[in-house]
């Protein structure tokens, strides 16, 4: 069984084993929004923008993050149900303003919350890029919970400035401002 067949938004889609729902959807031209996803990096599953509703062949329904959920034979995926839209709107509001890219599409014009305490949305793309592609591990997360912050390894500023590849990955300009 080389190809797995599933259904996304009513369309028949195929993919190789190990493909994620997000990859399968995008290869079929179905767009699912993401904030922490980067196709060069291991999926992280942190922003939850890519959540979709699935129904397994056994009839179980659940909400999953499509960037990390592997496709299964007979899976039925819906990428934009009422619940999914509700979740995405809330994420946009909670990460405001760094989530504005999707604001118009989801009809969010302002956040009800006190946000923007940190300019960084903690998507982890910079540090995953640094670790996985550059193999440098110069950036890491410091602290946990609401205290979580990105941080540079001590003394990394100079070499980071000369590399700078992650600067463009960042919506907030956090790293560039510190190097």
């Amino acid at each position: 069984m080389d190809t797995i067949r599933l259904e996304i938004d009513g369309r028949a889609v195929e993919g190789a084993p190990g493909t994620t729902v997000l990859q399968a959807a995008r290869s079929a031209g179905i767009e699912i929004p993401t904030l922490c996803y980067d196709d060069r990096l291991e999926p992280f599953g942190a922003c939850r923008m890519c959540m979709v509703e699935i129904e397994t062949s056994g009839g179980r329904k659940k909400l999953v993050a499509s960037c990390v959920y592997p496709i299964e034979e007979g899976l039925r995926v819906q990428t934009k149900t009422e619940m999914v839209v509700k979740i995405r709107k809330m994420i946009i509001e909670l990460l405001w303003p760094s989530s504005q890219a999707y604001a118009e599409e989801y009809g969010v014009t302002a956040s009800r919350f006190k946000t923007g305490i940190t300019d960084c949305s903690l998507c982890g793309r910079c540090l995953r890029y640094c670790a996985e592609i550059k193999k440098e591990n110069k950036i890491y997360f410091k602290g946990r919970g609401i205290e979580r912050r990105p941080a540079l390894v001590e003394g990394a500023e100079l070499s980071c400035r000369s590399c700078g590849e992650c600067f463009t990955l960042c919506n907030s300009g956090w790293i560039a401002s510190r190097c």
Partner: protein
Amino acid sequence: MKRVKSIADLEKLRAEAVARRNARETWLEVCTGSGCRACGAEAVADALDGEIEKRGLGDKIGVRRTGCHGFCEGAPLVVIQPSDTCCLKVQPKNAAAMVDKLGAGEGPVRDLLYLDEESGERIARLQEIPFYKHQERVLLEDNVRIDASSILDYIAIGGYGALAKALSGMTPESVLQEVKAAKLRGRGGGGFAAGRKWETTRNAPGEPKYVIVNADEGDPGAFMDGSLLQGNPHSVLEGLILGAYAIGAAEGFIYVRQEYPLARRSARTAIEQAREYGLLGKNILGSGFSFDVVIHRGAGAFVSGESSALMSAIEGHVGEPRPKYVHTSEKGIWGKPSCLNNVETWATVPHIINKGADWFCGMGTEGSKGTKIFSLVGKVKNTGLVEVPMGIPLRDIIFKIGGGVPNGKSFKAVQTGGPSGGVIPEALLDLPVDFDELTKAGSMMGSGGMIVMDEHTCMVDTARYYTNFLAHESCGKCVPCREGTRQMLHILDNIASGKGREGDLEILEELAEFMRAASLCALGQSAPNPVVSTLKYFREEYEEHIRHGRCRAGVCTALIAYEIDQEKCQACGACQRSCPAGAVHKSETEVFTIVQEKCIKCGACFRACPEKFGAVVKVPAGAVRRESAEEFALAGTSR
């Protein structure tokens, strides 16, 4: 010390251990659990040792330092065996009298016995003390009987008998079937069927397989697992070895949280001893089965108790949950099948193998079998560790065993299940303790923390406390959990400080629904529980805070003020001396008053005012008589 190479060897060793125990006719079992130790149990044990030696009674009376007895309210505890006499609040100075009386065969010191408030009588036997009488102590009973640092003590009371039974007469399949038939559910929180988990790991492709003890007990107010691992480490180890045998694992881990140095030491000693005797290592009891265990010390993160985070931590990574659409029982540590159960679950296994699944199923309800240990704390007379059969009503635990709420206050709610659990109000106290029933009520069994709250507990403040805990103990990886708890905390802070707005409660509910649906791991999915359950049962309290700026429990400092009743004040000055802010002044009438502008609401005066006067009172912030500093200055009494 000799290796135990066969079951016959083990039985021979057991006979020797029993003889050693029986060599002395009387044993003084001093609880050296964390609570008793903090109250000076070590000094008590040393004093008893000293007095016994002084009198040359060393061959008749022995002192045994045991694990937690459970009745923390009576700490430090000493139980005299074989008469099963329980002495409470023993101090080193009592040692001489205790030993004298025992030496003379006169029984215990009367003043140290439990005093029954109703009948006014002293109760000597442990089993007759109400706190113990209504319990069913399967696991905890052994804590009282053994010295945790002695494997021979454990063997003497039948320890490693289940292992011998399994290795001699049972196949791994039949051990697994026994646990499945017992319908043992995980005691760590989720209540997942342990047998099914074992089976998944056993059948999952991939070698080697691992078995893991989760001793990362981090719920505020919970100390079941710590006490069990500290007081009876070999029972956990024996359960783990049995599990490894059933599953086909050759290596195990005990993940102990950083904050449990005593439990860790106890576990380490137990592992070393088990290795020395050949109960761990190659070819255990000559069966051909080999297994060994490593201790992994946590680094202080609550979230590391979540299975995938715990396994990341063992691998050497940051303890962060990972998306697990494949269970850790199939792909856990280093991608290999890994079976994780908590301390209490593992410790239950030897009992099931010894006495059989039918015996175990004889206790509990349809969906929850056996017994469960709870740490009963908060506003309850008898705090401590209690073990009860599943299905017992919450009311029995709190009132029959716990003795109800002290100081004539009334019961308000009980918080179960740790930070991810919820509160249960008075009206639901007849709920049976059962995994499914507690979940239905909006709380959960969790690992067994039980915090009793009285009328002076504010539910907004309670929700805020737990949300704050979770906001700081979340790993912070996924948006719903990190940002959701951040915003919830912000809203709750506002409500508690009188800045709540109409619509806040609806936003809290919206956030709760979102976090449940979208969070990455169980911590985030259950993080709204404290807010949701307090909203469900105590919504009017939230509304009072928002609409009337009133905290009926008198807890939220922004909404209360302290005042001195001019009629009751006897001008003793205790309040003035206690005030760190210089806010208490002597007024023209020679009694004291509080200058509200200066008051920081620490409550020091409230506590300092002698009970017989009761002149310092809490009032709603709006109801206070505004007496400004200037007025006092004009009156010429200000200093």
